[in-house]
């Protein structure tokens, strides 16, 4: 061989400080961890400022119930945004589906399980309509969904005719219901504790399995300390959260729906071929097409899916208010979009995760609730939320410009005054 390329170096084994091990272990996901840390700091802040009121079981439960629909919307929205699109119609679709379902139940007395199916079907039809224009006619999603925003708002108003239509009590349980308790009296809600235990067990098992697999292939694994720290942290969060919920009425039904959707969509985006196709199309549409990805089909399905999730959110919201109202769902799309961007997605597409968006949505939710707890004026809450959105994205943009998009790196830089080195252009 006339070339001087060397074999890839084996991962070096060397002693390093605990801090640098942790740093290495968490590298790459720092944006997401950064947001999680910010969320934790925010919760801590409110906990102190409200003299321990913030983390009252009742407050935590209402955090989940009040934000459930936005978080559900954010799940669909992040996929749309990864693809490089946007969906402005979800608020109107929420209202339209909620109104349709409420009206059908009122007029025909359709049992609620069928009503839910009906709502999902309506959502799918709406999504197919919008997906068609985006994917097969090639109209920018911004325009299609802006049109959809007006269109479905109009239909919603037409159906409700400026009246509020109540929904049956069973239907209301989607948002306001809780799992029935069983088992010995423990002062806590038993099913919630059991679910938490299962969640932790599955988490630990998956992490260990993954670690083993990576090691089996002779690839460098995360330092053990980092993994343990991560697992302990996550488990602690789950336990605290579960105990809080369990000492009130247990996990609300909307929490279960959300939990299931997060797991399902995390799996779809991270582990399936379809998920890969979403990231591939969002990252480089032309390259994806030449790699065998049917990018139109991906566009269509993701837009369709988003409207189905909007239908779910719409029904949850209708159930939460016990009735469908004409003005339901206004600005929901903006909350969902803000959650996704706070959660680390990129405007240019190709980047974003479901879990990140949930963190982003919770940041917004915690701000809402915490500031309300502190009796801050709602106008101020709006202003603060706007600044947080701007700040979160600005932080990301700036740290990317400086080099590694690293949260801890930024802190380190702040403490060690070295000349700012530029990043080699990664062209």
């Amino acid at each position, binding site marked *: 061989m006339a*070339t001087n390329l060397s074999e890839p170096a084996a991962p070096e084994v060397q002693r390093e400080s605990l801090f640098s091990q942790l740093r290495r272990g968490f590298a790459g996901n720092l944006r997401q961890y950064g947001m999680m840390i910010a969320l934790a700091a925010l919760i801590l802040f409110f906990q102190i400022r409200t003299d321990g009121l913030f983390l009252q079981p009742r407050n935590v439960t209402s955090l989940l119930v009040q934000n459930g629909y936005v978080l559900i919307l954010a799940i669909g929205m992040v996929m749309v945004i990864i693809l490089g699109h946007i969906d402005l119609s979800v608020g109107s679709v929420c209202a339209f589906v909620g109104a349709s379902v409420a009206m059908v139940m009122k007029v025909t007395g359709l049992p609620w399980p069928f009503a839910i199916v009906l709502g999902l079907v309506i959502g799918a039809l709406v999504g197919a309509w919008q997906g068609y224009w985006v994917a097969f006619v090639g109209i920018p999603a911004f325009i299609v969904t802006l049109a959809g925003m007006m269109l479905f708002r109009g239909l919603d108003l037409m159906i409700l005719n400026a009246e509020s239509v109540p929904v049956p009590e069973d239907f209301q349980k989607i948002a306001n219901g809780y799992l029935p308790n069983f088992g010995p009296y423990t002062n806590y809600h038993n099913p919630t504790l059991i679910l938490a235990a299962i969640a932790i067990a599955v988490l630990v098992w998956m992490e260990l399995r993954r670690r083993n697999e990576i090691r089996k292939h002779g690839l460098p694994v995360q330092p053990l300390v980092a993994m343990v720290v991560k697992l302990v942290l996550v488990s602690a969060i789950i336990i605290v959260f579960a105990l809080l919920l369990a000492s009130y009425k247990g996990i609300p039904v909307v929490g279960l729906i959300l939990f299931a959707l997060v797991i399902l969509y995390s799996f779809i985006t991270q582990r399936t071929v379809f998920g890969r196709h979403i990231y591939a199309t969002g990252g480089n549409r032309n390259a994806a097409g030449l790699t*065998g990805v049917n990018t139109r089909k991906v566009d269509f399905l993701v837009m369709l899916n988003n409207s189905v999730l909007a239908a779910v959110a719409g029904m949850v919201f209708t159930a939460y208010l016990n009735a469908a109202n004409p003005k339901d769902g206004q600005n929901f799309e903006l909350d969902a979009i803000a959650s996704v961007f706070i959660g680390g997605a990129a405007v240019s597409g*190709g980047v974003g995760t479901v879990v990140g968006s949930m963190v982003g949505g919770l940041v917004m939710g915690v701000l809402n609730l915490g500031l309300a707890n502190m009796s801050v004026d709602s106008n101020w809450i709006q202003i603060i939320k706007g600044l947080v959105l701007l700040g979160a994205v600005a932080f990301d943009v700036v740290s990317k410009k400086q080099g590694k998009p690293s949260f801890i790196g930024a802190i380190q830089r702040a403490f060690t005054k070295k000349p700012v080195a530029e990043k080699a252009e990664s062209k």
Partner: protein
Amino acid sequence: MTDTILSMRSITKEFPGVVALSDVNLEVERGEIHSICGENGAGKSTLMKVLSGVHPHGTYHGQIYFDGKEVTFRNIRESEHAGIAIIHQELALIPELTITENLFLGNEVAHHGGVIDWLEATVKAKEILAHVGLDEDPNIQIKNIGVGKQQLVEIAKALAKDVKLLILDEPTAALNDRDSDHLLGLLKGLQARGITCIMISHKLNEIERISDSITIIRDGHTIETLDVSEGGVDEDRIIRGMVGRDLSHRYPEHEPKIGAPLLEIRDWTVAHPSDTQRMVVKGASLTINAGEIVGLAGLMGAGRTEFARSVFGQSWGQKVSGSAYLHGKELTLHSVKDAIASGLAYVTEDRKMLGLNLLDTVRASISSAGISRISRNGVVDENEEINAATRYHRALRIKTPTIEEGVSRLSGGNQQKVVLAKWMFTEPEVLILDEPTRGIDVGAKYEIYEIINQLADQGKGCLVISSELPELLGICDRIYTLSAGVITADVPREAADQELLMRYMTQRKAD
């Protein structure tokens, strides 16, 4: 007595973890054409960015003297003001604006109050265009003229700013031979007008042809400066300096084992996607045998890429007629998916635009085209994926510490290997390789050639599209020539030379 216009002394530029330039010196005489050569990543572009203020004063060590004074540029504006213009590989023109608007962008012909006098601007534009030998209506939009002419507009734009030193980064990379010749001729003309040029290029024959002196950079160090007028400077001499070793064979030896016909394409005709009356490929037929490396030569605009992409699942244009047979069996090629399933692979010409998702890891990039091979019921088996990626990481010697590295952080040659790995993973029978070595350094090129040879030895058929005739002559067993969408000849390697190929490539057959 020499007159030095530019002197860069002991320039050292560090990025976190990398020393991009280490104690680099560059002396440029007034009025000369000075070329800078080096492998990709050697530091050529970084040096030019230091010079033009993209990397501002204070972020590097060393001194720059320009036109007799020490200069400390903090941004491009300051260097432009001093008379230095840099023309990047990626053109900085705005496609929707006209030539005039582009020419005076940031330098508008304005009267008091900032009102632009468009008539005066247009007249001036016409004048400036004449200097670069471009006879175009100044009111035409940039997107409507070819890359070659766009390049000229860029130079005209620099001239409009009264430039003393013109820096061109890979000016001919995207040009065909005729446009390249014109451009190089223009540089000579500018030289006569006293403008100094620094040119960065991978095309060594051009460098040898027009340079007065050549500075070679390797791994961030200045290796030597060659004075062309002294003689003895040829391509091999430059390559020796660039790679620090003798590349007596730029192309690996290969004994072809050619088998039965593998892919046959008959009478393939493709229309332009937006102008269906215009046939871009007309009745093209070709055969690729097992174990054979077949070249497809053609000038830019001849329809090479369009032909390949049309065959590859109609990913370009509108197919009018034609059929394709693999092992004598007719193929259905309605989509890229069909093409991959049929055993075709198309290694795209532009890795950043068409070949890779730059946000992806090496692992996900390698598995992306053959993802169905490692998934069951639509769920990706990441175990298998890691396995496959690791296998290619080693086999193709992709230079990256782990397969979890982002592809955007790899060098051009290694990115190209990732693209190759991605297609090898689909286990195709025929690979179409479009400009497989464009913009990558000499050492990596050699490795790519070896990989192509290995693929042929495994009985696969390879169709190589390249603008560099020596490359086709160096690695192909047989070469088709394409001229204006028509296949004009099928030349065996033994019979082929550059002049013959060029004759066929420019031959026009009556429609």
